[in-house]
C-alpha cells in the first residue's frame, strides 16, 4: 500500500516536474524569441542610429584624447566658469573625452552589428524564397488587385494578336512564360528578383567593414618616426610609454643593435643573446615596433608657391635598407606614400632638429662656367673656381625677411625662406657681402657674373612619418565595393512582376495587364504604357 502510494507520488511528481519543465521551456522559448525579435527589429536599428549620432555629436564638441585644460576651456564657454570643472568630471567619467574607444561606444557598435546580422538572418530565408519562387499564372480576379492595372480592347482574335502581345512584352525587356486559358492565353514574367538582395548586400558590407577594422587592430600597427635627414631607423614608435631611465637605456641599446643589422631582428637577437620572440616582446613593452628592415631619410624639402608662404609640396627622399643593401628608393609626398613588405610610410609632418648644425650645400659657378658643389659648415669658406675670390658663411636665417628700414629679420623658426649671409674676400680684402636665398636664384649673382646657388641646409630638419601596417585594409576596400554595389541595387533597381491576360470578347480581344514593382512604380508604369502603345500600333498595322 505504502509502496503504491510512493509510486503514485513519484509518478505525480515526475508529471508535475515534466509539466513545469515544459512550461518553463515554453516560456524560455518565448523569451528568447522576444529577444530575437527585438534584435532583428527596425525599431532597434533606429534607436541605435539615434544613440550613435547623439553621442558622436558630443564627441565632436569635446576634443578627443586632449589635455584636460583644453576641454575645460570648451566647457567653460558652454556652461560658465563655475560649472565647467564639475561638468568635465562627469563627461570624463562617462568616457566622453576618449569616447570612440570607450566600452559603451564599442558596445553600441557591437549592438549595431548584432542588429544587422540578426535582422538579415531573420529576413533572408523569406526573401530567398521570394527570389527563387518562379512566377506562375494568376487568377483573373487577382490581376484586379495588382498595383498597376491596364485594360485594352483590340480588334481581332486572341490567336492573331498573340504575337503582338508577346512582342510588346519582349520589347520592354521581359522573358515570359505562357499558359492556355479557356478563352485565350496568359503570359507571366518577372525581372530583377535578385535585386531584393541589395539591402542585405549593403548590410553585410557594414559587417565586413567592421571585420576589416578588427583585423587591422589585431594584426596591424600604427606608429610614427621623426627621421632626421641622413639618419636611418629600424623601428617605429607606437605610443609613448613611461619608462625608467634604465629601461630607456635598454631600449636604446636594443635599437642600436637592431640598427647595426639594418633591422634584421634575428641577427640582432643572436647578437644580444636572447630569443627573437623575447626581443620582440621586450620592444612591444617599450612601445616600439621593429620594421624588419631600416628606413633612411636621404633628404627632406618643402617647396612653396611663388612669393608666398603656402606650401606646394613636401618631399622626403627615403631609402629602404636590408642587410646593408639599398633595396628601394622613393621620393614620397602627401598623397604618395612608400610601401614595402606590407608597411606603408606616409608624409605627415616635419620640423627642425634642436641643436643640429647641418651642412650648407652650395653650387658655385664661375663666370667662365666652371661648376663645383661645396659642402660647408657654419663659418666654412670656399673659393669660386678659377678665381681668388673666397666666400665665408657668416650667418644663416631659416625665414629671412626685411623690415621697413631694410634690416634683415627672421620671421619664423621653420625653413620658410632659408638664406645664408656670405662675405666675399679677395686677397684678404673684403669685396662684397649679402644674403643668398634658396628660393631666389637672383640673390646669388655677384657683380662679376659668378653664381652662388644655395641648394640646401642639409641635416637640420627631420621628416615626420606616419607608419602603418594594416592587413585589414583590403577587407575594408572590398567591403566598400560591395557596399556601393549593394546601394546601387537597393536604390536604383527593382523587382518587377507582370501578368498579361489575352481574352476573347465578342470576336475581339481584351488584354488585361496587371503588374507590381517593389520600388519605383512610376518607372514601371511608364514601361507598361509603352507596351500599350506598341499593342495599338500592332493592331493598326494589322488592319
Amino acid at each position, binding site marked *: 500500500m505504502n509502496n503504491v502510494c510512493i509510486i503514485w507520488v513519484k509518478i505525480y511528481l515526475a508529471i508535475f516536474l515534466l509539466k513545469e519543465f515544459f512550461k518553463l521551456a515554453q516560456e524560455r522559448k518565448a523569451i528568447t524569441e522576444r529577444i530575437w525579435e527585438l534584435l532583428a527589429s527596425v525599431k532597434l536599428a533606429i534607436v541605435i542610429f539615434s544613440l*550613435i549620432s547623439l553621442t*558622436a555629436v558630443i564627441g565632436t564638441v569635446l576634443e578627443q584624447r586632449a589635455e584636460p585644460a583644453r576641454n575645460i576651456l570648451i566647457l567653460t564657454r558652454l556652461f560658465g566658469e563655475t560649472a565647467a570643472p564639475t561638468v568635465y568630471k562627469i563627461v570624463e567619467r562617462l568616457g566622453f573625452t576618449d569616447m570612440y574607444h570607450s566600452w559603451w561606444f564599442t558596445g553600441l557598435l557591437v549592438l549595431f552589428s548584432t542588429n544587422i546580422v540578426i535582422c538579415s538572418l531573420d529576413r533572408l530565408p523569406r526573401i530567398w524564397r521570394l527570389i527563387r519562387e518562379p512566377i506562375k499564372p494568376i487568377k483573373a480576379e487577382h490581376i484586379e488587385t495588382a498595383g498597376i492595372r491596364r485594360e485594352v480592347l483590340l480588334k481581332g482574335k486572341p490567336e492573331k494578336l498573340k504575337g503582338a502581345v508577346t512582342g510588346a512584352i519582349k520589347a520592354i525587356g521581359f522573358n515570359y512564360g505562357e499558359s492556355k486559358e479557356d478563352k485565350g492565353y496568359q503570359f507571366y514574367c518577372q525581372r530583377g528578383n535578385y535585386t531584393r538582395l541589395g539591402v542585405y548586400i549593403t548590410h553585410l558590407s557594414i559587417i565586413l567593414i567592421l571585420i576589416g577594422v578588427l583585423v587591422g587592430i589585431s594584426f596591424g600597427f600604427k606608429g610614427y618616426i621623426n627621421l632626421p635627414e641622413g639618419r636611418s631607423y629600424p623601428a617605429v614608435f607606437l605610443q609613448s610609454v613611461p619608462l625608467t631611465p634604465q629601461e630607456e637605456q635598454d631600449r636604446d641599446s636594443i635599437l642600436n643593435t637592431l640598427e647595426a643589422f639594418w633591422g634584421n631582428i634575428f641577427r640582432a637577437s643572436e647578437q644580444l643573446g636572447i630569443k627573437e620572440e623575447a626581443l620582440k616582446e621586450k620592444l612591444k613593452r617599450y612601445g616600439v615596433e621593429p620594421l624588419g628592415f631600416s628606413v633612411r631619410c636621404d633628404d627632406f624639402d618643402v617647396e612653396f608657391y611663388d612669393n608666398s608662404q603656402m606650401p606646394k*609640396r613636401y618631399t622626403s627622399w627615403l631609402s629602404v635598407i636590408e642587410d646593408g643593401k639599398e633595396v628601394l628608393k622613393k621620393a614620397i609626398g602627401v598623397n604618395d606614400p612608400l610601401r614595402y613588405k606590407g608597411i606603408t610610410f606616409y608624409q605627415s609632418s616635419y620640423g627642425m632638429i634642436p641643436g643640429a648644425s647641418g651642412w650648407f650645400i652650395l653650387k658655385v659657378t664661375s663666370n667662365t662656367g666652371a661648376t663645383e658643389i661645396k659642402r660647408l659648415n657654419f663659418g666654412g669658406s670656399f673659393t669660386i673656381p678659377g678665381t681668388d675670390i673666397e666666400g665665408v658663411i657668416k650667418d644663416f636665417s631659416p625665414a629671412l625677411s626685411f623690415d621697413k628700414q631694410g634690416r634683415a629679420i627672421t620671421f619664423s623658426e621653420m625653413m620658410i625662406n632659408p638664406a645664408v649671409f656670405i662675405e666675399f674676400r679677395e686677397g684678404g680684402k673684403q669685396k662684397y657681402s649679402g644674403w643668398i636665398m634658396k628660393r631666389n636664384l637672383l640673390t646669388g649673382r655677384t657683380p662679376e657674373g659668378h653664381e652662388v646657388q644655395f641648394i640646401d641646409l642639409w641635416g637640420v630638419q627631420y621628416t615626420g612619418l606616419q607608419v602603418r601596417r594594416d592587413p585589414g585594409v583590403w577587407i575594408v576596400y572590398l567591403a566598400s565595393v560591395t557596399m556601393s554595389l549593394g546601394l546601387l541595387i537597393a536604390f536604383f533597381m527593382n523587382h518587377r512582376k507582370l501578368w498579361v491576360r489575352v481574352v476573347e470578347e465578342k470576336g475581339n480581344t481584351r488584354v488585361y495587364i496587371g503588374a507590381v514593382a517593389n520600388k519605383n512604380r512610376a518607372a514601371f508604369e511608364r514601361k507598361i504604357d509603352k507596351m500599350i502603345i506598341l499593342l495599338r500600333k500592332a493592331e493598326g498595322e494589322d488592319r
Partner: protein
Amino acid sequence: MNSSVFFGISTMAYIIAMIIYITYLAFRNRNIGIIATTVTVIGFLSQTMAILMRWKEFYEISGMGILRSVPLTNLYESMIFFVWCLILGYLVIEFRYKNRSFGAFVTPVAGLALAFINISGMSKEIQPLIPALQSNWLLAHVTMSFISYAAFALSFSTGLMYLILKADKKTQATYIFWTFTLGIFITLLLAMAIDFLTFKVAVKPEVFIKSYLFKASFLNSSVTTRIVSWVLTAAIILIIWRFGTTLKTIIERFNISAETLDEITYKSIAIGFPIFTLGGLIFGAIWADQAWGTYWSWDPKETWSLITWFVYAFYLHGRLLRGWRGKGVAIVAVVGFTAVIFTYLGVNLLLSGLHAYGGIE
C-alpha cells in the same frame, strides 16, 4: 570676359526668374511659366560656363593636371557648385513632375546665395592647392558630396512643405515643429544680415564667424541688445506660429499633393544617400587612407558625415515602420539637413580637425 561676368549673369537670371515664377503662381499662365523656366535655364547655363571657365583659369595657374584643378577647393567655390546642383535638381523635378511651383522658392535661394557669396567678401582668388588636397580623389569626393548635399537640400524643402500641409491644428506637435524650425532659420539669417549691416565688413567667412557673427545681436556686449534679440526671436517664432496657416494656404495653391511631396522627399534622399555614402564617406575614407594612412580617424568632419549618414539611414528605415511613416520621417528629413549644414559649414568654421583646411591655420 572672365568667369565673374557669367556668375553675375546667372545671379541676375535667378533673381529675375524668381519674379517671373511668382507672377506665374499668381496668374497660372502657361507662357509665363515657360519664360520663367527659360530664364532659369539661361542662368544655369551661364553658371555652368562660369564654373568651366574658372576651372580653366585654375588649370592654367596651378600647372597641375586638369583633374586636380577642379574649382571646388574653398568655401566660395563649393557654395557656387552647391547652388548649381540645387538648380539642376530643381530643373529635373520641374520636368519630371511637370510642376513649376517650386521655382518660386528655389530660384530666390539660388539668386540670394550667389549674391550673398558675392558681397560677403568671401575670397574669390584662385588659391593654389596645399599638398593634402593634391589628389585625383578631390574631384570625385567633392563633386559627389555636393551633389548629395543638394539632393538633401531639396528633400529638406519638400519635407518642410509636407509638414506644413499635413499640420492642421496649431497645438499639434508637427505644426509647432515646422514653425519653430522655420522661425530659427529666419532668425539666424536675419541676425547675420544685421551683422553685415552693422559692421559693414568684407572679410573671409572664417574671420567673420570668429569675430563678427551674432555680435550685433545674441553676442552683443550690451545686455539689453542680447535680451532684445532673444525676445525678438521668440516674437518671430510666435508670428510664424500665428500666421503659419496662411503659408499652408499658399502651398495648397501649388497644385501639389502632400503625397507627391513625400515622394519627392524620398526620391531626393534615395538619390542623395547612395551618392553621399560612395562619394562622401567611401571616397573620403580611401583618400584619407592614401594621404594620412588612416581611413577613419574620428576627426570632426568624418564624425559629422557619419552622423548625417545615420540620420538619413534613420529616415530610410523609419519609412518601414508604421508609426514613423509620413510626418515622422518628414521631421527626420528636415533634421537631416541641419546635420548636412553642420557637416558642410559648421565643422570647418567651428570645430577643428584634419579637414579644417578652410579654417584659420
